[in-house]
């Protein structure tokens, strides 16, 4: 079903694009990172780069949870399905992510009991309905999905559902932003901050971006106009020599975030000392694990997990693309060995990954530009 079809406010889009053009200073370049994969998808979908002056380059950040999940974690999850009592559940986005010996979808085709769920509460229901089975929820996502996993575990404990466990791969966005800012080959002028993650964490966690690194960050919505307005706000800060955290998406994102969601996360999870991000490597205190109080529901403690480590092929330059050093099409594998159908690198896996978005929407433009 389609809800509505047309592009809204073309006049406002045009005037905002003109304001952007007025704000860029001659001879200056602007490298802005949109952190969130949803923004990356929207930028490509609406070809927003075409509305921007050539001196503004949008760098696509690490905010796609499927893309940054190391392949070894997929293999770890799939290893559980060799147990006949296990039902492995996960979000649809994960079903296509390749492990060393195929994706969850391919494993399911070979007979593994893997079920797609739309919510962790569906995994809880499966556990209640199948008391003789072990239901494992393969949890991924940033702060937008972590509270739902936490609340599901709270319900499992309250209802004494003991045959549910969570293989926790939740990550937190702020340490990844810091890692990118700390990286020596990083040269960014400002950030478009994530919309939905900020609904949960609010604006305060980003303050270090301005205070310690002197970069503007503007939390943005997902409409074309939202993204363009957030670029205007960043450019105004740069023009005035300011570095602040601003909120373009204040119709949805409160500065304080969502209190009950933050409490649920803190109640059930604690920070891991370090966690591996595909394309970025190990980042300290960047992911969540399950607290001792919920140890009985922690798949990593409940089952012997192999702890598989898989290095991405050296030829795949995901890290460079993630940090904006290379554009997707500049990677040696892009569109040849690595495609959305047979992804090798992390960023080709999900439609929110920079490479997959570039492959789907921008290749024609590249071809035109090259001819």
């Amino acid at each position: 079903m389609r809800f509505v079809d047309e592009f809204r406010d073309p006049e406002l889009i045009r005037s905002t694009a003109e304001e952007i053009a007025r704000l860029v200073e001659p001879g200056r370049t602007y490298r802005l990172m949109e952190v969130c994969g949803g923004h990356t998808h929207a930028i490509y979908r609406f070809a927003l780069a075409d509305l921007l002056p050539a001196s503004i380059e949008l760098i696509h950040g690490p905010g796609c949870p499927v893309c940054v999940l190391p392949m070894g974690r997929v293999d770890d999850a799939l290893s559980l399905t060799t147990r006949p009592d296990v039902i492995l559940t996960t979000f649809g986005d994960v079903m296509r992510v390749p492990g060393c010996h195929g994706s969850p979808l391919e494993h399911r085709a070979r007979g593994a009991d893997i079920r797609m769920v739309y919510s962790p509460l569906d995994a809880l229901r499966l556990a209640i309905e199948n008391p003789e089975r072990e239901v494992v929820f393969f949890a991924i996502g940033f702060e937008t999905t972590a509270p739902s996993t936490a609340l599901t575990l709270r319900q499992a404990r309250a209802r004494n559902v003991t045959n549910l466990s969570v293989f926790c791969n939740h990550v937190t966005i702020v340490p990844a932003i810091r890692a990118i800012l700390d990286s020596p080959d990083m040269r960014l002028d400002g950030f478009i901050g994530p919309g939905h993650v900020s609904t949960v964490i609010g604006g305060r966690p980003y303050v270090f971006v301005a205070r310690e690194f002197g970069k503007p960050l503007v939390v943005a919505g997902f409409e074309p106009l939202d993204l363009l307005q957030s670029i205007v706000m960043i450019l105004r800060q740069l023009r005035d020599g300011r570095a602040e955290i601003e909120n373009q998406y204040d119709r949805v994102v409160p500065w304080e975030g969502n209190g009950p969601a933050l409490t649920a996360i803190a109640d059930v999870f604690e920070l891991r000392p370090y966690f591996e991000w595909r394309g970025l490597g190990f980042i300290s205190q960047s992911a969540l694990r399950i607290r001792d109080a919920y140890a009985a529901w922690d798949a990593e403690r409940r089952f012997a997990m192999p702890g598989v480590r898989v290095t991405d092929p050296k030829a795949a330059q995901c890290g460079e693309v993630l940090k904006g050093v290379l554009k997707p099409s500049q990677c040696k594998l892009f569109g040849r060995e690595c495609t959305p159908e047979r992804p090798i690198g992390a960023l080709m896996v999900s439609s929110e990954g920079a490479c997959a978005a570039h492959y789907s929407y921008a290749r024609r433009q590249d071809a035109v530009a090259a001819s």
Partner: protein
Amino acid sequence: MCLAIPGQIVELTDKTRQFAVVEISGVRRKINIDLLQEEPPVPGEWVLIHVGFAMSKISEARAREQLRLLAMMGEDRQAMDELNGYKFES
């Protein structure tokens, strides 16, 4: 998983476990509203839903904008599949 789906609260069904029924485009599904405990929604109000949990209250105008955005992004079918897919026990 990363979709934010707007839905209109129709009925609060389970006060202890914080479930409510939402409607969008004629489809009714049960979701969890525990994360809105500081300002619980009432029937008629709109919420943004992530993986079965209402994460924020929004105005009806914003909800319609979000529906339009999902359509423009080509994600409206996916959103309805997700909503249809919520099958919560309670």
